[in-house]
């Protein structure tokens, strides 16, 4: 593995290797000294063209726990906002000796382009590109589900997952559908038809417009953030109607089987896609998702950078 660009690039063994490695990383994180010397002398650049403090901090902590040098390169307040191209930014980072670039970009495919355009030699980790993918989010979600539903071991065969919300614009949903399928889970996407992409019938999942009929049959439900501004583009009439039809409130949560968990990639719109009662309930695993995110990102950075460059491909 040289880059992590799409959850779809991972086969079952690779995905399990990342999850198993993350589990070891998580165990190490319980110790008094949380730092490992593994990536000493390696440089990881967090190249963020979009604001995402959570994801950036998570990657930063992961890299630092492995003793990598971390540079945060935010588009805001840098030459990028003055119009420097992705290419020139990449060439700059290459000259500085970046071993890995963790990139968040508004443009779908920008990480793929960065990895394949011959601008840099290091590894590229997709930390979210446009409305395309966010593979480490899918990995941390799978890790979280595995812990709760499969005792932290193996894959997710037979686990039933509902992903609810703005599928059309969600990189989290795309990565999750691909990874969960690889791991053997059964996915149902739930959204109003306006927020589902054309051509969904080719995706390896079920689609429903009716959340109430789906919830009783799932082991995990993942609520996606719905941007208020989508209303302006006529995706749905009002936040109130969206919340009434697709939001997860206390009554709906009680439709879930006893053991089912509630995930959310954050940040949450309380009162919109998820009610405070659900967000604060003991089925909600959002806080744990954050902690697992660090372990998963440590695993990814280790697996990408922990070996010889020419041999790890």
């Amino acid at each position, binding site marked *: 593995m040289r880059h992590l660009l799409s959850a779809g690039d991972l086969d079952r063994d690779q995905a399990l290797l990342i999850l198993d490695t993350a589990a070891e990383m998580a165990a190490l994180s319980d110790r008094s000294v949380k730092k490992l010397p593994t990536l000493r002398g390696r440089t990881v650049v967090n190249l963020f063209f979009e604001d995402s403090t959570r994801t950036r901090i998570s990657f930063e902590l992961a890299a630092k726990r492995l003793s990598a040098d971390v540079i945060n390169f935010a588009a805001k307040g840098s030459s990028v906002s003055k119009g420097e191209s992705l290419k020139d930014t990449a060439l700059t980072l290459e000259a500085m000796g970046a071993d890995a670039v963790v990139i968040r970009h*508004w443009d779908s495919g*920008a990480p793929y382009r960065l990895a394949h355009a011959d601008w840099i030699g290091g590894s590229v980790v997709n930390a979210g590109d446009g*409305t395309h993918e966010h593979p480490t989010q899918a990995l941390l979600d799978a890790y979280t589900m595995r812990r709760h539903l499969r005792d932290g071991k193996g894959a997710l065969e037979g686990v039933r997952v509902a992903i609810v919300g703005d599928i059309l614009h969600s990189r989290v949903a*795309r990565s999750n559908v691909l990874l969960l399928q690889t791991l053997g889970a059964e996915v149902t996407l739930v959204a109003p038809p306006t927020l589902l992409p054309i051509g*969904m019938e080719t*995706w390896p999942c079920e689609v429903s417009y009716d959340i109430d009929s789906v919830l009783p049959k799932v082991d995990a439900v993942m609520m996606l953030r719905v941007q208020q501004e989508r209303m302006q583009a006529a995706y749905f009439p009002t936040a109130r109607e969206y919340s009434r039809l697709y939001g997860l409130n206390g009554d709906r949560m009680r439709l879930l089987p006893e053991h089912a968990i509630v995930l959310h990639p954050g940040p949450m719109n309380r009162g919109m896609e998820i009610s405070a009662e659900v967000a604060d309930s003991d089925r909600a695993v959002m806080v744990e998702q954050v902690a697992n995110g660090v372990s998963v990102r440590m695993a990814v950075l280790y697996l990408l950078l922990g070996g010889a460059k020419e041999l790890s491909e």
Partner: protein
Amino acid sequence: MSAYVIRGVRPYGEEAVDIVINDGVITELAPVGTGKGEVIEADGLIALPGFVDLHTHLREPGREDAETIESGSQAAALGGYTCVHAMANTDPVADTAGVVEQVWRIGREVGLVDVRPVGAVTVNLDGKHLAEIGAMANSAAEVTVFSDDGKCVHDALLMRRSLEYVKAFGGVVAQHAQEPRLTENAQMNEGALSGKLGMVGWPAVAEEAIIARDVLLAEHVDSRLHACHVSTAGSVEVIRWAKSRGVNVTAEVTPHHLILTEDLVETYNPVYKVNPPLRTKKDVLALRAALADGTIDALATDHAPHPHEHKDCEWGAAAMGMLGLQTAFSVVMETMVEPGLLDWRGVADRMSVQPARIGGVESQGQPIAVGSVANIVVIDPKAKWTVVPEALASKSSNTPFAERTFPGTIVHTMYAGRPTVIGGVLA
């Protein structure tokens, strides 16, 4: 002007002759070896009327770093063209007599092809106010084709008015059919792949709905409509239906829409970013069939040079468009001639006769016959060549066909009786 003889060439792939040219006109089709004049060897090669492009972006004035009238003319001549229609979306926009005359005049000075300026339909392509169509038509450039290409004349009333207005000058409105609201920030064909790649989709209906509206408007006001770069099977159906009703509509298809499909977008390489976007295999096959049966009248390159930095970047930031002039014939050869969809007379019709007719260029598209203006392209259908982007005459190198090997080369081009290309290089 001196006399030339194109020796041993086969017009339309038929019997070999010597084409004798005097003072810019074909004066004799003589038995091989008997024609008098400066000999241009073409033993066994094929002669067709010089190609006419209805849709070329020469970028001058304004983006001379991407292309100039001179470099574009060179690319055209090397691609077998003797006439190009220079699109209006320059900077400044070709929306006044002054700009179109300037383009026309520089084209004449370069002298490699007829450069026929296309006039803008609306001022500054803003879609709000009609440009001075009459002034452009009556200028030295004698503009007959009007287009806001790059943008759609989406206001139905304005489109109606422009269709009506050009009737006074025998003009035609060439519509870039793209419903703007359905294609806001659109990046690629809308379908399963756009959903997978997380790109904003460009639905076929955004093109088809405008063409459907415009053929009905053209029928209603009894005017001429030309549909630019038709890219979907649905558009073909609409045009076929309109023609069956007797609507005065013509249509063009680009070479790239005859050969490339949307799956190339999976590389996120912006060299494949184009407007309209690459579509599906089904669309490609429908377009080939439509060009073969004449539903689509003409091939048009939509040659769209862009400087390197507008393509060597991430997809969303990249410009839309591809080079086309020097690869157009080979694409037709591979997609239409070799599979038997078009014979040589068919190629002459779709690449020369029809575009000349649509563009109203009398001196172009004439048959290879005594008395015709000597606009001639000589082709070697057996030769193969490999596209090297940097070696193309264009100032830009954004061809989607880098490294690709194609059948068919342009050997000689005669423009108005004078060789512009001899042996595959500029004369």
